[in-house]
C-alpha cells in the first residue's frame, strides 16, 4: 500500500535519513522505533510528502507519491509530535476549521466533529480553549483533528510524548481500536518500546538515520534468543561491582538501570552464583535478582550498545 525505496535525506553535510526501506500493508500497524534524533520525524515528513527526499522514493499503491501527492494526502492523516492546533481556539472551533479545510461541510461536518469529539472523550470540554487543556487532552484533540476526514492511513509521530500514564493508555487503546475495528493502517513512531510492542504488528528499529532491524515483535526478540537478561538490584550502586561484572568472560553487556544493573549474558550460563560471589568481593549488597524475558529495549541495546532513552 505504502512503501519507501532507499529514502535518503541529507541536510547540508548531515545525512539525517539513509536509504530507508519500509512498507505498510493495508490494515497493518507498523512501529518505527528509535531514540531521539534517529531520523524518525524526518522519515515521517518525507512519507507525508511534506519534505522532498534527497534521493529515493515514496510509493503509494505503486504510484510515485511525491509526484501525485494529493492522492496520498487525501487518504492520510498525520499526527505531528507537536500540538499542531490553534490554542486560542476551542476544540470545537479547531475541529470545524480543520474539517472545512478538509472539505467537509454542513451536516456531514457537524456529525464528524461530534463523532470525533465523542471518540476522543472531549465532548464536555469542546467549548474550552485548547490552552486550558491538560497535556493529555491536547494530545487527544491533536489526534482527533486528524481523524475528521476518516483517513485510511494514520501516521503518528510520537503522539504520547510528555503525558500521564492514564492519558497514554487512553490514546493507545484508541489507536488500537482504530486499527483493529476501523481497519486504519497505522505507522507509529516512538522511543517508548512498550507502546510499539503493545500496538504494532511489525517494527522497524531505526538509529542514526538507518533501519538497523525489522520484523514482528517475536522476530526481533529472537535476535536475543541465545541471550538472557538478568536484572540485579543493589542496596548501593557500586562502580567496582559493575567493572567486575563487565570483565566477566560470560557477560556480554552491563548497563546501569535504576537502583541496579542489567546484565546480558548467553543463555545457559550459570552466572547467578558468580554474580553473588562478585558482589561479596566488592562488598555490594544485592537486594534482588530477576531473569527477564527480552524486550525490544533489550534488542535495541543489543544492536546499538545504547538504550532507547540515551
Amino acid at each position, binding site marked *: 500500500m505504502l512503501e519507501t525505496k532507499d529514502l535518503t535525506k541529507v541536510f547540508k553535510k548531515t545525512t539525517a535519513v539513509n536509504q530507508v526501506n519500509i512498507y505498510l500493508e493495508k490494515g497493518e500497524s507498523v512501529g518505527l522505533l528509535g531514540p531521539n534524533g534517529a531520523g524518525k520525524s524526518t522519515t515521517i515528513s518525507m512519507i507525508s510528502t511534506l519534505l522532498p527526499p534527497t534521493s529515493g522514493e515514496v510509493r503509494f499503491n505503486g504510484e510515485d507519491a511525491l509526484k501525485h501527492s494529493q492522492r496520498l494526502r*487525501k487518504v492520510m492523516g498525520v499526527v505531528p509530535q507537536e500540538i*499542531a*492546533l*490553534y490554542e486560542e481556539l476551542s476544540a470545537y472551533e479547531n475541529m470545524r476549521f480543520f474539517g472545512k479545510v478538509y472539505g467537509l461541510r454542513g451536516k456531514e461536518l457537524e456529525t464528524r466533529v461530534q463523532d470525533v469529539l465523542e471518540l476522543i472523550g472531549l465532548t464536555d470540554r469542546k467549548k474550552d480553549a485548547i490552552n486550558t487543556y491538560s497535556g493529555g487532552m491536547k494530545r487527544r484533540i491533536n489526534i482527533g483533528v486528524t481523524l475528521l476526514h476518516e483517513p485510511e492511513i494514520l501516521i503518528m509521530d510520537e503522539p504520547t510524548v510528555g503525558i500521564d500514564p492514564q492519558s497514554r493508555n487512553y490514546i493507545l487503546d484508541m489507536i488500537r481500536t482504530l486499527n483493529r475495528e476501523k481497519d486504519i493502517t497505522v505507522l507509529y513512531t516512538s522511543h517508548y518500546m512498550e507502546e510499539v510492542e503493545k500496538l504494532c504488528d511489525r517494527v522497524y528499529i531505526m538509529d542514526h538515520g538507518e533501519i538497523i532491524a525489522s520484523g514482528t515483535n517475536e522476530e526481533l526478540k529472537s535476535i536475543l534468543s541465545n541471550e538472557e537478561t538478568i536484572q540485579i538490584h543493589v542496596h548501593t550502586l557500586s562502580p567496582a561491582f559493575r567493572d567486575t561484572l563487565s570483565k566477566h568472560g560470560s557477560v556480554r553487556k552491563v548497563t546501569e538501570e535504576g537502583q541496579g544493573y542489567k546484565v546480558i549474558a548467553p543463555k545457559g550460563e550459570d552466572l547467578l552464583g558468580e554474580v553473588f560471589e562478585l558482589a561479596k568481593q566488592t562488598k555490594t549488597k544485592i537486594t534482588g535478582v530477576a531473569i527477564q524475558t527480552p524486550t525490544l529495549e533489550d534488542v535495541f541495546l543489543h544492536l546499538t550498545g545504547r538504550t532507547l532513552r540515551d
Partner: protein
Amino acid sequence: MFELIKKDSLILSRSRSDLTELLFMPFILIAILGLALGNLTMTEFNINAFPVAVVHEQTTAESLNNWESELEERGVPSEGVRALVAQAEDVAPGEQVDYLFNSEEIQEWMTVEEYSSAEAAQAALDDGDISGVIIIPEGFNEAVWSALFLEEEGTHALTLEVQNVESVTTDILRSVLTTYANQFNLEASIAIATEGEADTANQQEESYGEVTNLTAADPITSFQYYTIGMGAMFALHTAPALASRAFLEKKQHVFGRLMISGTKPLTYLGSKLVSGTLITFIQLGILFGLSTLIFGTFRGYALNFWIDLSIVSFAFSLVVGSITSLLTSISLYSDSNTSSSFFGGIIVTLFAFIGGSFTPVEQFSESLRALGNWTPNGAMMTSYLQLMQGFSLTEVAPLIIRVIGMTAVLLVTSVVLFPKRRLD
C-alpha cells in the same frame, strides 16, 4: 481561503497582546499626544507661512510699452491700439499674481517676497531659504494679451521652481497656481464676452473661490495629525503580528497539517495577504471611528471625505497585506521569526519617523519628507493630510498609485520567496 482568513481574524481577536498592540496602544498614544499638543495645529508647525519668492522679469509698464509698440508695428490703427492697451491695463496677469499672493487668505499659508532676478531667487531656493519660486517671465503679459484680445496662440507660462516636488508646500503652490490660471482664463473670457461690461473688481473678490476654500479649511489639529500618524504606524505592526503567527503555524506543524489537508501553498500565502489587508482596514476604521467618536477628530467632514479616506485606507491596507505576505514568506523560507521581529522592532519605528508619524518631518528637511513619501505609511500620511486640506482624490492619486506599485513589488517578491517544496 475564507476559512483561513476567518481563522486569522478570530485568533487575533482572542489575543490580548495583539489587541493591545494594534488597537489599545495607538489609541492611548492618540489621546496622550492629542491632549498634550492640543493647542498646536498643523499650520503652526508645518505648513503655515512657508516662504515663497515671486520674480517679475518685466514690469507691467514695460509690458504695456512693448505691447503698444508691437500693435503699432502690426499696423493696428492708433485708436485700436489705445483701446487694446486700455483693456490690457485692466487685465494684467502679472499684477494679478501679486494680488493673489498678497491676499490675506494666501498669506496664512505662505510669506511672499519679491526678488529682482530669477538667479537670486534660485540661489535662495538652493540655500533652503525659500520653498518655491514663481517666475513671471519676460513676455508673459504680452503673450496673454495676444491670446485674449487677438485670439493668437501663445505658449508663455508661469514657471514654478520648488525645493521638493513631493512636499505638501509644493502641492499647495501648484494648486494655487492652477486655480489662478483657471480663474484668470474664466474671468478674461467673461470680460471679453461682455466686452468689458462685467465688473472685474467684483469678480476678483470671488475669483479665487477654490483658493479661499482651501485656506478656509480648518487647520489640522494635533488629534487629527496623531490619529493618522499613530494609525499609519500601528497598522504596519499588523504585518509582523500576522507573520509571526504564520511562523508559529510552521513551527507547531499546523502549516504542515494544512498542506496535507490539500491547501495549496499559494492559497495559504494569499490568505495572509487578504487577512493583513482586511485586519488593517478594520483596525484603521476602528481607530478613526473611535477617535472621531471620543475626540471629535473627523467630525463635520462630508461624506465624500469619508469615501476618499476609505479609499486611501484601503490602498494602505493592501500594502500592509503585501508586507504580511512578504514577512510570511521570509519567515517560512528562513525558518526563523527574525524578519518579523526586525520589521516590527526596527523598520516600523524607522518608517514611522521618516513617514512623519511622530512629528511632521518637513520641519527637519524637505528631502526627509520626500524620502518619507517613499515609505508606505509616509505616502499614506501625506495623502490623508492632503485630503483633510481639501485636496481631491485625483490630486492624491500619484501617491496611492505609488503605494499600489509597492504592493505589487512586495507581492511578487513574497511569491518568489515562498517555499513551495519544503512544507513540513
